[in-house]
């Protein structure tokens, strides 16, 4: 059962990442990977909120597998983040590469912390 939940969530999360990335990149011509940045930060916020809900007892393990391990896990990506950073370095955009790493890590962590804090506010 847990496998089915993870795979179902991921089969929604992965194409959502692909479509969101295309939609975001279509609006930006800066060469900065805003699409991956956006899904990684958004996914961190949702997973932080969900983890807080699980800690508070408001969400069960099934929802955690479906939305956390499956959907958020597949919506966000480390491999594309690394590849896009490498491409920025290789094309001489070292400043943008550094900004992508620092920005993604800090904004992602901030979003996850905000999600946890939000859950504590909703389910005290």
């Amino acid at each position: 059962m847990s496998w089915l939940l993870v795979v179902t969530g991921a089969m929604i999360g992965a194409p959502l990442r692909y479509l969101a990335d295309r939609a975001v990149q279509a609006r930006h011509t800066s060469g900065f990977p805003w699409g991956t940045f956006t899904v990684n930060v958004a996914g961190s916020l949702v997973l932080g909120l969900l983890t807080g809900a699980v800690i508070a007892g408001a969400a069960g393990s099934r929802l955690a597998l479906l939305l956390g391990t499956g959907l958020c896990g597949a919506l966000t990506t480390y491999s594309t983040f690394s590849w896009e950073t490498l491409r920025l370095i290789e094309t001489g955009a070292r400043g943008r590469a550094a900004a992508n790493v620092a920005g993604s890590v800090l904004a992602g962590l901030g979003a996850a912390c905000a999600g946890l804090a939000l859950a504590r506010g909703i389910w005290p």
Partner: protein
Amino acid sequence: MTLPKTRARPTRTAGFLQGRVVAAVALGGGAGAAARHAAAVHWPTPAHGFPWTTLVVNVAGCALIGLLTVLLTEARRTPHPLLRPFLATGVLGGFTTFSTYTTDIAGLLAEGHARTALACLVVTPLAALTAVWLAARATRGLLRGRA
């Protein structure tokens, strides 16, 4: 009067390919996430411990995307158009995760394990970038050697 017909055809083909790409990404994403879940089940992270499993999964996925993308974009043979969406965007995108990385660190911080949180925060991107760089370099070397 033939103009609408000839204009409609490429749009429909593009839409058809787009639909197949989304399906390939979904299937690959499901497989990648199942593999990540298997790793988490076999090597569970102890409470308040360093999240090694997520680190290893992410670093392995980064090495694989370096190898794969160089093979698919820089080799002489043109790959099938669905191969990169399925394997890179789908399987490796579903296998690796950014949200578990950030949420694990947020959890460690909230529980007062700042040193473990900071170590994970810094080590993961350094190891991931080293892995993708080394894998891309090694694959390019192999491709040049065969050319």
